[in-house]
């Protein structure tokens, strides 16, 4: 019983981080049609920014969301306004753009990763945060894990409220459903795409801040996050934010269960789930 509880709660903790990891990627792909391979690098950059703020200035890691979030929103927005907008303008059609955009994102990935390696080296980094155990129903958990879960859940809820209730949120959802129709109703589609790319950066920053509280990281861990985010997004249905959240939690719980049995086969199981899903339900859990 204690073991089930341990797996369930740790699964929720990982699930919330997975959901957060993938929401940004999903927003970028769903509207701007860019599969951002550099997403994981955005996350690592946010972790480093947090680490600098915590170790140098001694601030609470959560306050780093303001700094890292602002920086990564601007980077994302500017990248779309300059690089991806230009690629879109010269691509002959939408399908060609998706392919070109992945290559460009790969370029961004290499540049960002190596800049971080120059600045921070490639050794593993981390800091201590809320490092004491908490007991729930006889099972032991790190206090920081529960803190991470709570904040990831809050960000997921706030982001969904933003999408469903604000004017910008509505324009994002409309653009994800039918960009041409949205544009014909007066939506400034180029601006919405750039905002979505910026939001992707902001959400990556939130993920990076929370990950830095809970685990160690280095300048080369970014691609792992990207891989997990892609798996979560494909499982949830490309472009579906709610699908990403659902599949994030499913993979979090399954992953934790598998991890307690044999950590080395976790990705194998993830890929197996994806394989089966692509055969049974090619559009993902909540894909249209």
């Amino acid at each position, binding site marked *: 019983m204690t073991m089930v509880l341990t797996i369930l709660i740790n699964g929720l903790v990982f699930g919330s981080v997975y959901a957060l990891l993938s929401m940004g990627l999903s927003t970028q792909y769903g509207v701007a049609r860019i599969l951002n391979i550099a997403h994981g690098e955005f996350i690592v950059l946010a972790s480093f920014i947090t680490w600098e703020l915590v170790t140098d200035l001694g601030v609470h890691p959560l306050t780093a969301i303001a700094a890292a979030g602002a920086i990564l929103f601007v980077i994302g927005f500017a990248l779309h306004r300059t690089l991806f907008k230009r690629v879109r303008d010269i691509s002959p059609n939408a399908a060609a753009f998706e392919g070109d955009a992945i290559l460009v994102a790969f370029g961004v990935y290499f540049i960002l990763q190596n800049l971080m390696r120059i600045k921070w080296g490639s050794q593993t980094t981390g800091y201590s945060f809320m490092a004491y155990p908490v007991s729930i129903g006889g099972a032991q958990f790190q206090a920081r894990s529960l803190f991470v879960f709570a904040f990831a859940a809050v960000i997921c809820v706030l982001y969904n409220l933003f999408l469903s209730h604000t*004017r910008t949120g*509505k*324009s994002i959802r409309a653009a994800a*459903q039918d960009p041409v129709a*949205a544009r*014909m*109703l*007066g*939506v*400034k589609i180029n601006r919405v795409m750039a905002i979505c790319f910026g939001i992707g950066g902001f959400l990556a920053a939130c993920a990076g801040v929370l990950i830095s509280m809970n685990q160690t990281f280095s300048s080369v861990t970014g691609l792992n996050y990207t891989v997990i985010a892609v798996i979560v997004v494909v499982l949830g249905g490309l472009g579906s934010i709610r699908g990403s959240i659902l599949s994030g939690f499913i993979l979090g719980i399954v992953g934790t269960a598998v991890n307690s049995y044999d950590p080395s086969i976790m990705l194998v199981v993830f890929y197996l789930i994806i394989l089966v899903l692509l055969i049974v339900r090619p559009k993902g859990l909540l894909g249209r």
Partner: protein
Amino acid sequence: MSGRGVSISFGGMKAVDGVDFDLREGEILGLIGPNGAGKTTLFNIISGFLQASGGEIIFGGGKISGLKPDKICRAGIARTFQSARNFPGFTVRDNVLMGALFGKPGKTRAQAERTADSTLEFTGLDKYAGMYVSDIPLSAQKRLEVARALATEPRVLMLDEVMAGLNPAEVEDAMALVREIRGRGVSVIMIEHVMKAIMSICDRIIALHHGRLIADGAPSEITENKQVAEIYLGEA
């Protein structure tokens, strides 16, 4: 609104070829022609979705050809699509609210909500407000296309076959709606294949064939036009 020498070619074929047209204030202008005549292409050019390779379109004293579609919408020209492109993930009300929120600059949220509700009422869609597009009848989906465009508070409304697929009673309702829209001071250009409808509600009709303008006149003149009768009515 007027167009002078409007042209576009796709791979050497002239889809719209030197078309001149005028839409007068408060007029209902019909746009007819056989399939492939370039009617929807002309709509796509006016709404900014396609860039004309020649000619220009003037609206409200300024040149609008070359502007992006969202800017043209905000300038006061709204359109519907031949196959309804409502947002499937939004309720009927949210679909209309999109037009109200983004179609006209400088509106507060509360003003946009009021515009959406009054547009729903005006188009008789208020009873479907909370439903999703897939759950309402086809005639209502067609009406929703119109309502959404109308919520942008346009001065010119372009309707692309909004009566296609409707039964005779629904066509009557749609005709009444178009008249009421004009009654609000909105100028209308409509592409339509339902001849009875277009002949009875249009003030003037222009006919296209192979991208060229072949006739321009009152409905009675169009029915008597030999070229139109041969090319278009003969085929129908």
